[in-house]
């Protein structure tokens, strides 16, 4: 049995007051504005998990870029980390805005939040292409199978045969965002459940340390429009069908010597920050570096109408977009004029080329 994921320790001398993380911040410092979502909305639970994950990771709040599109889900970037910049873009286009922001300043840590409408319908093109480019970012989809903000239409992730609140049957094949990501060669693919906080937090923590695009598809029931019988995105459905792949733990580099996973107790993957992702075997002994294995597991779960959660796939080696472009270490946005503007000789050389 692996030990439980380490809870952040209190720095010495701070024995009173709320617990502080590695950079000395209490969790409250990762909070955002008050949520205006419906009471019980899965999205709020995801927001809480993100807040917690950021705190456990001791993320530098000033370097988080909270990116989103439009939808109830996309609003949630306002509900965590008030200390960070947020960009609530237009519907379905969060990935491109994030790409631009990261090209300008890749020292930022992009956390994108989207919905299933935002990502699987209007935004599917940008989703596909951000994956293809392996942009370093965490891409969370708060997946409720409906358009919450526009009052409950089916989204493209709604299962065929599932029922709307009004009782209509969905006729269309669902898009499985994890399956799609795997097919596209996404370098980090995970699925979570808003109500399974214990698993979701370490998944998010690992995602935020991944070198490329980390897709985290999270079932997030919409209590107002899609939490009835006949829905396959309800709390009941999630609870009855969840099948966690493994127990997920993420250990910060500075905690490594304090954690002692039993040898062979699971699979360990070291991420670029030096932290270690630990996956303790539950049902299967899937190695998340096995792409074909991941695809197969997903297909099987689909056939059995099971809701597989966990980290399906990770390729920790493939260079990301920034690396592929061989960009300099500094953010290009704020380079000084001396770097940005070529000198007089440069201009003269160009002029000569036109003579």
């Amino acid at each position: 049995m692996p030990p439980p994921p380490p809870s952040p320790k209190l720095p010495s001398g701070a024995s009173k007051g709320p617990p502080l993380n590695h950079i000395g911040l209490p969790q409250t410092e990762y909070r955002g504005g008050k949520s205006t979502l419906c009471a019980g909305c899965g999205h709020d639970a995801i927001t809480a998990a993100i807040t917690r994950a950021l705190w456990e990771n001791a993320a530098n709040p000033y370097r988080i870029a909270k990116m989103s599109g439009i939808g109830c889900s996309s609003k949630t970037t306002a509900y965590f980390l008030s200390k960070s910049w947020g960009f609530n873009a237009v519907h379905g286009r969060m990935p491109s805005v994030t790409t631009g922001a990261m090209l300008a300043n890749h020292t930022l840590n992009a956390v994108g939040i989207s919905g299933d409408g935002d990502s699987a319908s209007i935004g599917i093109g940008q989703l596909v292409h951000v994956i293809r480019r392996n942009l370093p970012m965490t891409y969370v989809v708060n997946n409720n199978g409906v358009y919450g903000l526009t009052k409950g239409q089916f989204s493209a992730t709604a299962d065929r045969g599932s029922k709307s609140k009004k009782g209509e049957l969905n006729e269309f094949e669902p898009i499985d965002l994890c399956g799609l990501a795997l097919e596209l060669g996404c370098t980090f693919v995970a699925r979570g459940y808003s109500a399974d906080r214990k698993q979701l937090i370490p998944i998010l923590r690992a995602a935020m340390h991944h070198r490329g695009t980390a897709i985290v598809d999270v079932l997030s029931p919409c209590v107002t429009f899609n939490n009835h019988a006949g829905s396959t995105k309800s709390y009941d459905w999630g609870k009855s069908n969840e099948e966690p792949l493994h127990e997920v733990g993420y250990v910060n580099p500075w905690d490594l010597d304090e954690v002692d996973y039993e040898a062979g107790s699971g699979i360990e993957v070291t991420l670029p920050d030096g932290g270690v992702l630990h996956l303790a075997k539950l049902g299967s002994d899937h190695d998340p570096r096995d792409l074909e294995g991941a695809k197969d597991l997903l297909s099987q779960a689909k056939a059995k109408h099971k809701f597989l959660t966990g980290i399906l796939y990770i390729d920790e080696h493939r260079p990301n977009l920034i690396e592929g472009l061989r960009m300099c270490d500094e953010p290009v946005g704020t380079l000084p004029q001396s770097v940005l503007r070529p000198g007089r000789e440069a201009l003269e050389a160009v002029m000569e080329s036109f003579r």
Partner: protein
Amino acid sequence: MTPNSAAQPDAAAAAPGVVVNDFTLSVATVNGTGSQTANATLIRAIIRMGVPASGKNIFPSNIQGLPTWYLIRVCQDGWIVPRENADVLICLNRETARDDVMKCAPGAWVIYDAPFKLDMLRDDVHYFPVPFATLVRDVAPPKLWKLVTNMLYVGVAAELLGIEMAAIDAALAKAFGSKPKAYEINVKAVQVGRDHARESFTRPADGYRVEQRDLIGDKILLDGNSAVGLGAVMAGVSVVPWYPITPSTSAIEATEAYLEQFRRDADGTATFAVLQAEDELAAIGMVLGAGWAGARAMTATSGPGISLMSEFIGLSYYAEIPAVIINVQRVGPSTGLPTRTMQCDILCCAYNSHGDTKHPLLLPASPGECYEMTMDAFDLAERFQTAIFLLSDVDLGMNNWLSDPFAYPDRPLDRGKVLDAEKLQAIGVKEWGRYKDVDGDGIPWRTLPGVELDGAAYFTRGSGHNEYARYTESSTAYEANVERLLRKFETLRGEVPVPHRDDTDGGSPVGIIAFGTSHWSLVEARDILAKEHGVTFDYLRLRAFPFSDAVEAFVQEHERVYVVEQNRDGQMLALMRHELPQVAAKLRGLRYYDGMPIHARHIMNDVISNERVA
């Protein structure tokens, strides 16, 4: 032969006499046959002789096999727009040969592929049949024949027109400098063409001739898209997301080439990113993301791309994010004629997107202005935190223009109102509001993500927000915010490039307004109208929207003012009528919209008939 008689095909044949350094040469060929190098050689050689010339490529939306024309206007007066009817025709496309010949000016020289047998078509032109297929055999191995044929016509034309071999040689050296073998073959081809012409033809007594002048100096020959690229790089562009579309692609290619040249280290590290997006929506989204995060970002596109970018452009306006958008206009609507020129996205760009929006337009008329105004665009975008459009067109962007060499920028980059941690602390974090108008100019201060200070962060959104960037649906906050945006636009009015005004001596009660590439035919038309019809106009060239006060003053000072533009609907006229209501009644439209660059003759005729000049 007076400069404009050649443009009158109906007139009786011109009086004999040699026309020196003033003619329009048209090369009619098939695209994909590699005639570009030959045409470039011709024009460069003429320029080497110190004589002004400009080239326009009329090409199809296709890769291989359809008709294409290259038009060279040679004119020592510096007029650069080809006349409607060619004076010298090089006829290599069987499909269009008949039409091409029929459209020539009377007295024209027709150099053509001998098997076409064109010499019965009309008898007021001179024919020069060239057996290209035979000649080419002596020059190169079969697989090069198609390419080499082109250099043969260069030789023939050069001989007939008196273009010196030294000039041709210099042009060839430029083109093939690094490839001695290709250079050699091409020199030989030109020589064979020359020899054939010398041996087979006698130059007619009337006709065309290039003579050495000293009118070029250190001028350069380039297309507007290259100038845009250079301007962008001199402005420090760092993020260039784009999606291919004719005729804007080469603006990006130029940008990328200069970035590779000047902004990549020896070890391969780049201080920039050029990224082909999956479409225009993504391209502009990336520009906004980068602009928001503090980088100078630009994209280039054409009409269809602008339409696709509309939603994001509205976001840029309302959330106040810098963006530079190069729109190399082509003929719309829809796919239209992608390789033909028009100034037809004026309204679409000025008021782009839904809701109340207004966007600044920069209106270059030359590669020099493409260069300058692209730099301006970046400064304006960052200062005003909004999308700036540079409106070029096929003609300006993709054709070759003579230009004075570009000056090195004389002012530093203006990165606009950005607060770093220090400045923010000086103000007091609580005092600062992302959308507060503290300076009375409508322009708020922003921070860039990454400032390590509590209170420096803010939330960007396209939905209603107050001065502190907080979400609100308050009517008063909404109203105050959009009124500030109007104030910002007023400030902008004073900072965009000012119009150029050129009054006639003594002034005229009538004014003409033009912009962009219409300028060149306009000045030609104006000169001719003055010389030949004694009709004079004052002239104002718009260089930007919003309109500087000088624009309204110009209209105010005249009885009536013609607005010349290359579109069907009088889009600039519409913009002026709305934005300058006090003087709107004086404005009249003068439009041209067939996809070819507007001709001096068209402007002349329109003005003459409007003003009822005899």
